């Protein structure tokens, strides 16, 4: 395969990343504007459900799509079968997510159903394209194992999501709340979680310039995580709480093994200073463990309604969002430099594209937002949620500024402010 052939047209990953940055701002704006909904959220349409899907679909899934389209062909050497299909997926997925979120916020069924259908189409194309690469690259064990299982979970998560949208209008589900909880577990821990674990096998050693995780350790992490996922989802759906608690326990064992491998990568890697992104990665991993402990304690009956709410918040906002922002913080300057490499001129160094002050300000506001919103959910109080939403919103705007600055330095005014190198 040719030199630049595996480097995807940058407009493909960038459109997904740009959408994620926009939905990141929207989700915190919704929380800041409607804090009482988030503080006592127990399901059903409204601004809290819209904010939740602005995170899960708008930020997490959109970033996963952009990163998968960009990273998997580079990592595996197997090209994307059709870049046109990757573009078409974005035409369905991004506006579809917007429409779905609007329908959820307004409590209107038609935009919810149409948006959900467009999202499902976009994700279906993504699923076919990425599973085809992973299938051809089965030799890359961790990517194939975690990735293909994550895509199977995506299929189940999308199907359950669609059933919930239909039920919103027709009311045919006997166990709507449990179906919604399984949708959250399968989409959050199954799709996004397993994908995050699988991608970490490549990305974290790449960031730290370290040896990868040994195959046996990776297989054990996968087995424990998959077992935890199946037991957790089955336990929640059937109301067998010791099974759900067992799922959280196996998930904890899998997480502990995964984190041991990741900590070893960071400790033994040649690059010791990963800057603010390492803080976010580590904080995200801490929230992964905390969310599973809260899930375990909730399944054992120690929490009332705050338990499920805190579990979802810690897993989605604490673990997945924090981890993803840490990853994106390293990927965007690297990607900018890589894409500029193909232009025939000396590109800027990644470190020139990542101003430490801006990233520190974002990390501080993000941490403040998590603490305040988490406290508000725990106390069922709107004021801390509103303050947290405002902090998160400011952080999201700063993060978007960081990404726009990279785009501007690479594509907007090339060679104007970037120091020329010999």
């Amino acid at each position, binding site marked *: *395969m040719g030199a630049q052939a*595996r480097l995807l047209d940058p407009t493909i990953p960038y459109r997904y990343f740009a959408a994620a940055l926009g939905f990141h701002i929207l989700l915190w704006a919704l929380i800041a504007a409607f804090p009482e909904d988030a503080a006592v959220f127990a399901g059903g349409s409204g601004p809290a459900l819209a904010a939740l899907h602005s995170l899960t679909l708008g930020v997490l899934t959109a970033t996963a799509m952009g990163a998968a389209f960009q990273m998997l062909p580079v990592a595996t*050497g197997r090209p994307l079968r059709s870049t046109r299909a990757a573009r078409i997926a974005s035409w369905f997925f991004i506006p579809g997510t917007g429409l779905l979120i609007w329908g959820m916020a307004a409590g209107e069924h038609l935009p919810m159903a149409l948006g959900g259908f467009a999202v499902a189409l976009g994700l279906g194309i993504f699923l076919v394209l990425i599973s085809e690469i992973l299938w051809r690259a089965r030799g890359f064990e961790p990517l194939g194992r975690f990735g293909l299982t994550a895509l199977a979970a995506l299929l189940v998560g999308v199907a359950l999501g669609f059933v919930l949208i239909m039920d919103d209008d027709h009311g045919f589900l006997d166990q709507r709340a449990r179906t919604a909880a399984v949708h959250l577990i399968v989409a959050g821990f199954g799709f996004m979680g397993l994908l995050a674990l699988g991608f970490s096998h*490549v990305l974290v050693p790449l960031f730290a*310039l370290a040896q*990868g995780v040994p195959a046996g350790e990776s297989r054990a992490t996968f087995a424990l995580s998959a077992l935890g996922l199946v037991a957790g989802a089955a336990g929640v759906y059937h109301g067998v709480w010791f099974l759900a608690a067992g799922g959280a326990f196996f998930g904890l064992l899998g997480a502990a093994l995964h984190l041991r491998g990741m900590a070893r990568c960071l400790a033994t890697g*040649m690059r010791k200073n990963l800057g603010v992104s390492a803080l976010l990665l580590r904080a995200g991993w801490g929230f992964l463990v905390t969310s599973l402990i809260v899930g375990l304690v909730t399944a054992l009956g120690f929490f009332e309604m705050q338990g499920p709410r805190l579990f979802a918040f810690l897993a989605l906002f604490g673990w997945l969002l924090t981890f993803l922002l840490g990853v994106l913080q390293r990927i965007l300057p690297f990607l900018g430099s890589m894409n500029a490499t193909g232009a025939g001129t000396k590109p800027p*160094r*990644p470190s020139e594209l990542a101003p430490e002050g801006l990233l520190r300000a974002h990390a501080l506001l993000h941490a403040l937002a998590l603490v305040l919103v988490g406290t508000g959910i725990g106390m069922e109080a709107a004021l801390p949620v509103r303050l947290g939403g405002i902090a998160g919103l400011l952080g999201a705007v700063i993060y978007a500024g960081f990404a726009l600055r990279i785009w501007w330095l690479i594509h907007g005014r090339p060679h104007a402010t970037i120091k020329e190198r010999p």
Partner: protein
Amino acid sequence: MSETVKRAPVASDVPVLWDSGALCLDLRGIDTPPKPLVAIVELIERADTGDSVRVLIARDPINLYPELLERGWSWSKEFAEDGSLRLTLTRDVPEPPESGR
């Protein structure tokens, strides 16, 4: 023709070779990311590596180039008929300090 030299392996088990007056890595049989990248960066970071390194590699290591830029190295590529790539990495000459005016 590359020959083995008495150097510690990089990325734990990749032998360092000698080819046409420069250290060389043959990474064509290594397909597990990020091992090829780690091997190259480890070699160029060694104090006794010199100013030029050759690399034989099965696929274009796109992730490597930002790392080379960070470390002040340039590169040139030469594709072989079998689709593999021969990279020549060269340490950039530092800019002379500007004379005071």
